[in-house]
């Protein structure tokens, strides 16, 4: 769609940011279900997350230059292909709307309680629209800048908090069997599978291997972040305290004093958090605008970035009414079902249909269209 080139490191940075939802709510849900085995649950989530992303990658076309929207049409046929693409467009818009809502709630409760929600929404939506309009290169480069800040904040957090961690809070392990940690891991697996969205921009990478490396590395890093955060939060507050947290990273940061320089480290953590959430949202705006451009068969996605931003902002106001409602949605399971339907079930179907096509082609029947073919 656009003339751009991105690096593996750049893609890893965006994908990590896209996974930001994965560290917001599922950890609290994990603690509620798995109790003291929450950290085991996080380990399971990290491993299963990699597995789900691997299925994503297996569903990709062999030629990395083929856009995912084209590939969906090639596999599913013209009618169902367009339908699946519309489905993904809605998925991107919903995820973007949720991220925007989360940013708005976070800012209005923690920083600007007297500012109207719409103002906060617009404040973050406009730069997101601008960045998405400037293209994937700008988004990846921004990600590389912000990820540095986030990493530094995260390291300060880990180092600052480590003396207060009580390892006995991690015990007992698996006292209720393996089922609770497995069930508790599902929302985290769903959020980790969002890193698979990297295959939408695969044509901008040098080759297929770069894309695979980027997606798997981003999933592994995100999984590691979930594990570290879960261990720290559980070591600090035990699973009972974790259960009540909305955003574990910020709750953890709130308990750190950085000498006598800053009374509360959470301000810095919040800044880094918002930067990364902003990136995730921008990437989703970009993907949604590209989907619309593909569906509308236009030459460029740019005219759609601001309309998409407005739609996502409207969804942010309409879909969910508070962070508590969002947390409930995430932890009751429908979130995992909704996300995994797009990130696991559809790829599995693609693999199955692809296999069916290949078999038909071998037996002399009609196979899928040519590589990169655009279905009218």
């Amino acid at each position, binding site marked *: 769609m656009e003339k751009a080139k991105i690096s593996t490191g750049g893609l890893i940075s965006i994908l990590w940011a896209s996974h930001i939802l994965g560290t917001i709510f599922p950890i609290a849900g994990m603690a509620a279900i798995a109790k003291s085995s929450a950290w085991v649950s996080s380990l399971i989530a990290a491993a299963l997350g990699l597995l789900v992303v691997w299925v994503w990658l297996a569903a990709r076309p062999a030629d990395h230059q083929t856009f995912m929207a084209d590939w969906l049409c090639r596999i599913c046929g013209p009618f169902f292909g367009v339908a699946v693409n519309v489905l993904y467009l809605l998925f991107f818009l919903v995820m973007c709307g949720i991220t925007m809502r989360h940013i708005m709630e976070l800012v209005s409760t923690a920083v600007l309680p007297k500012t109207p929600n719409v103002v906060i929404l617009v*404040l973050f939506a406009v730069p997101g629209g601008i960045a998405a309009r400037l293209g994937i290169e700008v988004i990846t480069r921004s990600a590389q800048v912000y990820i540095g800040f986030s990493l530094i904040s995260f390291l300060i957090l880990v180092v600052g908090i480590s003396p207060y961690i009580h390892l006995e809070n991690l015990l007992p392990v698996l006292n209720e069997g393996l089922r609770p940690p497995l069930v508790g891991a599902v929302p985290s697996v769903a959020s980790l599978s969002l890193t698979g969205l990297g295959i939408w921009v695969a044509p901008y990478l040098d080759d297929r291997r770069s894309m695979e490396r980027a997606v798997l590395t981003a999933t592994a890093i995100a999984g590691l972040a979930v594990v570290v955060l879960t261990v720290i939060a559980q070591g600090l507050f035990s699973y009972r305290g974790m259960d009540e947290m909305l955003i574990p990273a910020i709750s953890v940061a709130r308990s750190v004093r950085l000498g*006598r320089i800053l009374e509360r480290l959470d301000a810095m953590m919040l800044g880094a958090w918002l930067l990364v959430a902003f990136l995730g949202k921008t990437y989703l705006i970009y993907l949604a605008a590209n989907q619309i451009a593909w569906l509308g068969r236009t030459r460029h996605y740019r005219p759609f970035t601001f309309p998409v931003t407005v739609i996502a902002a409207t969804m942010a106001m309409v879909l969910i009414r508070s962070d508590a409602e969002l947390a409930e949605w995430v932890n009751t399971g429908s979130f995992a079902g909704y996300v995994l339907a797009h990130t696991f079930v559809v790829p599995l179907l693609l693999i199955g249909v692809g296999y069916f096509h290949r078999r038909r082609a071998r037996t002399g029947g009609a196979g899928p269209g040519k590589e990169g073919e655009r279905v009218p």
Partner: protein
Amino acid sequence: MPPRRPRRSKEATAPPPKPGGSPIPLDNDELKRIILDTFGETDVLHSRTVRVGGERGLRVLAIYDCSLFNAAEAAKTVFEPLIAYGDRPITRTNAIEVLKERVLTNAVIDFADTIEGVIEKILSGRVVLHPEGSRQALVCDVSQTPMRSVEEPETEGIARGPREGFVEQIEANLALLRRRLRTPHLRTESFTVGKYTQTRVVLTYIEGVASETVVAEARSRLERIGVNIDGLLVSETVVELIEDHPFSLFPTINTTERPERVAAALLEGRFAIFVEGTPFALFAPTYFAEFFTSSADHTERSITTLMLRTVRLLSLFITLFLPSIYVALVSFHHEAIPTILLLSIALGREGVPFPPAGEAFLMEGAFEVLREAGLRLPKTLSNAVSIVGVLVIGQAAVAAKVISPIMIIIVGLTAVASFTTPNFGTANVLRFLRFPILFLTALFGAIGMLISFILLVTHLVSLRSFGVPYMAPLAPFRYNEIKKGLWRRPVWDRGPRPATLFAQDTDRQEGGLMPRPPREGEDGGKG
């Protein structure tokens, strides 16, 4: 007269007549009339006819601008040899060849084939010689323009290192550069820019090192300017006409007064542009981080340079965000300030009628006014203005409870930090950027600051300098180039040229240059 394509002079050979130019008439008087008609009423244009080859010899017309040429040099290398040629044979057909090869002693002889070419040469201070009956004219370089001597650069002073800086004359600047790069691969391509100023612009690069694509792009951008503008007086005009992002606040072409800095840039695979009449050379492609490096960095040890550059980056952060951080903390998020500090700030602000944001705008604005006044005044007066501004007004404002003492500290720190940016243009941009950041912070606290930061980063990462990402090597992230560029590794460990510059020859130096004393059994020790 149709616009001419800019000239690219390679060497002094007779080029074919340029398409579109008016041919030189065979008759001397006709040529003289055309030239005089073109110049109109002027006292500086002179002409002289010399008969070469005896009484019945060939008439040679000399035309020159006496305000631009060196009379002694002209007499010695042009007129004396012409007259001294005596009665020896010379004809219309071989006149150009004979004059060039046997008569004239001038070191630089060129040709002109068109009336426009003759006019351009006269305006450059050359003597144009036209032998009767020839369609060509010979051009002898006897130009002399007022020139100041090579002095230490004022805007890029360093404690240790070369003291030479560029001057206004392009030949002198090229000589300063060539003295540092004694290689036949150093290419210089001339362009004439400006319909009326006919300013000489020179593009330089090292062939085999600089990327051909980047150089071709620079060449095409310079050619595009050509005579499509009326005049070119300063190098900044070229910057505005060839840069990638004309609406950006940030410069994407670097400038320097120091010859060794240009030489270093060329050695890295960049190109440089010299403009007649400007003591600044331009070089590109460039990165944002480079505007925070100085020539002094290469005269210090690498670890010292690392510390200096860290100080500059910290100063960049202070310049942009310190007043905003103060406003955000005091107005919106005082719970993040330690209690003792908060009490001290509250005591200082007691009785101050303005909110912190108002104070900040007032003091930052006042500082900018004082700074501008100091720049426009003579040096002796500017010192007085600074002292009056900083000491008297600041102290009076605090005593009158108009401004809190901590705001004076904040503004002072910000001002001092802004002076650490080595590049003058970038320092100006950063100073003024803090006002919109302050405005957004005044409205939305730390979130406003965060939004400003997001917008700033988004803008910076979207910039390119001749195709090279402006925020490299941070974004796209290149660890090796960060080590080399930001940390300035020791010379023996510099590694290859930056990959982001697309240099043709990436090998900068051989490995194994790390100095060490000879080991036991090796030659070189004195025992």
